[in-house]
């Protein structure tokens, strides 16, 4: 039988026995790891490297400009500040993965915030019930928008543009004449952003996360080698665990020097981790990527494309609602300006800066954290330097532009690499 013509790219390595000789890099040695990394950089698979470098760069610049930038207090405030928009970003990432956009998330956050305040303050319902109702409001809005998009075929851009106007109208209507409703201090709503954990809890979480990572990775790689599949060498797992442990323990150490790990930041990171696991490890996540990559292929594979689309829009709106709740918690009030400013744009910008593609099918939940940190750091640094928000908008625009250019370039290079 005719042999298939070998496809070889990049450097030659000594082929190990039992493996396809065309497997170019066998990352068992430190050199193999570096070669793999270089190859990925060249082929446009940059991953989170540009954002992380950018984040470090921003931190260094601001620390030189203002000595309090990297102080525990400032970083703690930053962590609390980015949580609300970060949740909106997490939701919009799901929509971006489908290759769609949701312009209504700001208004949804505002409307949910209004529902929360009206129910808990004006109507006197218990706060936990009001919180549930606010999240429910987001969920219902998302289902409506998703259904109009998926079933009727109106472009998501237009549906959510209508939502942007309509739900803002609802927000204004609900808040009524006063325009501002204050929530009470000391209740569960206020506690969401007022709670900080004692140091031991922070350390405990950090240790648990790193141990869980190591445990699950080792278990997974062991299963792989038991099944005769190429597995990651223990050294690489160790290196990855170290790269994970440094920022986690560093963050906990810093936050503990101020008030401790903030609950709101933990909620945000918790959602990011949960959505990351959902996207990468469940059938549902796989379907989201499939619909984003090629909806027709997904349909032919028997995936209920409409259901996936509706559910993604529902999740995005529900997360925006939670973001709106955190906004109320932080300002002790729901007002006409709650999520009425640049929150929508910042949320979408953060997703793209974090590395989620605007073209659909490529991205990850961690973009919300990375992108949120970048934008939060810029905001916080410029605030310390007492710069105007005009400067902030221009710098943010520049960072966003860089991110989009990187996205478009990596897409082009993938297309060049793909032959069909």
């Amino acid at each position: 039988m005719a042999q298939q013509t070998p496809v070889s790219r990049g450097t030659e390595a000594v082929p190990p026995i039992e493996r396809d000789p065309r497997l170019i890099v066998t990352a068992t040695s430190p050199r193999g790891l570096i070669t793999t990394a270089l190859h990925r950089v060249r082929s446009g698979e940059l991953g989170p490297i540009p954002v992380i470098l950018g984040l470090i760069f921003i931190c260094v610049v601001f620390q030189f400009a203002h000595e309090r930038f990297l102080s525990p207090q400032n970083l703690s405030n930053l962590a609390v500040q980015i949580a609300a928009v970060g949740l909106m970003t997490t939701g919009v990432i799901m929509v971006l993965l489908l290759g769609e956009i949701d312009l209504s998330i700001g208004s949804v956050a505002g409307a949910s915030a209004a529902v929360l305040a009206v129910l808990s303050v004006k109507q006197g319902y218990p706060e936990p019930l009001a919180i549930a109702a606010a999240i429910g409001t987001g969920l219902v809005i998302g289902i409506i928008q998703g259904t109009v998009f998926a079933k009727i075929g109106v472009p998501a851009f237009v549906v959510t543009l209508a939502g942007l106007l309509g739900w803002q109208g609802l927000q204004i209507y609900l808040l009524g004449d006063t325009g501002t409703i204050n929530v009470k201090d000391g209740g569960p709503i206020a506690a969401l952003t007022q709670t900080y954990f004692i140091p031991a809890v922070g350390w405990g979480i950090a240790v648990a996360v790193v141990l869980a990572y190591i445990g699950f990775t080792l278990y997974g790689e062991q299963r792989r080698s038991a099944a005769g599949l190429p597995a990651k060498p223990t050294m690489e797992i160790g290196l990855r665990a170290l790269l994970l442990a440094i920022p986690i323990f560093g963050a906990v150490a810093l936050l503990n020097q101020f008030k401790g790990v903030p609950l709101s930041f933990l909620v945000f990171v918790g959602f990011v981790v949960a959505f990351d696991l959902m996207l990468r490890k469940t059938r549902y996540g796989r379907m989201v990527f499939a619909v984003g990559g090629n909806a027709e292929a997904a349909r032919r594979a028997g995936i209920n494309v409409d259901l996936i689309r509706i559910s993604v829009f529902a999740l995005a709106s529900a997360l925006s609602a939670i973001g709106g709740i955190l906004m109320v918690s932080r300002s002790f009030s729901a007002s006409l300006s709650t999520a009425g400013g640049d929150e929508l744009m910042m949320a979408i910008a953060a997703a793209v800066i974090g590395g989620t593609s605007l073209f659909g099918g490529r991205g990850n939940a961690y973009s919300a954290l990375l992108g949120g940190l970048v934008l939060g750091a810029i905001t916080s640094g410029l605030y310390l330097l007492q710069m105007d928000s005009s400067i902030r908008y221009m710098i943010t625009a520049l960072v966003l532009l860089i991110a989009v250019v990187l996205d478009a370039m990596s897409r082009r290079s993938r297309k060049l690499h793909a032959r069909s």
Partner: protein
Amino acid sequence: MSTPVLELSGISKRFGAVQALSEVDLRVSPGEVVALLGDNGAGKSTLVKVIAGVNPADSGEILWEDRPVTIAKPGDAQRLGIATIYQDLALCDNLDIVANLFLGSEHTTASGALDEVEMERRARELLDSLSVRIPSLRVPVASLSGGQRQIIAIARSLLGDPKVVMLDEPTAALGVAQTAQVLDLIERLRDSGLGVILISHNMADVRAVADRAMVLRLGRNAGDFQVEDTSYEEIVAAITGAADNPVARRSGRVPVAGTEDA
């Protein structure tokens, strides 16, 4: 001849003003390769999509193992045991090979998470059993060559243990060696008792593997031949609808260069 596993009669399908299929009949038996032939736009892909449930027929009857069935959506066809390799491959470029192979029928562990290990192991096994070698199963399919993508698409259709496999121009974009590989694969499917429906414009391929040739012309049945005792000219005449036509005249001079060495 054994009883057909799949039998269609009187299938009609209309797209707006275009009557793409009218009263088409088709049958395929276990262990038989039926070539579906016809000029561009004859309705071959449309017929495949009817059988696959992607574009259900407007009217007509479908018998599956002698029982009447309705195929209204892709899931129906999959459940019956009909696997389809589409002309446009229907792979998700952003997903890796394993994810594409198991798309829509992923394995999960007891905890409900994707069982990547099991899927990769089975993918490896499957590709080995087809003597297909792919450098890494974890690259996005966007980076594969046309032939490799085709093989992945075929392999994917075999995962559900189908009884009928439909291939829409599987060799159109392939080189000589890859074409031979796909034809080998089709023969192996037939030998293991599957019914195969093969669409191809390449007469050499058809003569190499097909038992029967079913010709469509302008959306209608235009002939059903045993490939062994039918000449190339007869089939071409049925496809073009005329005994005297440029292709038939030139046929003496144009034996399509191919892979009949097997």
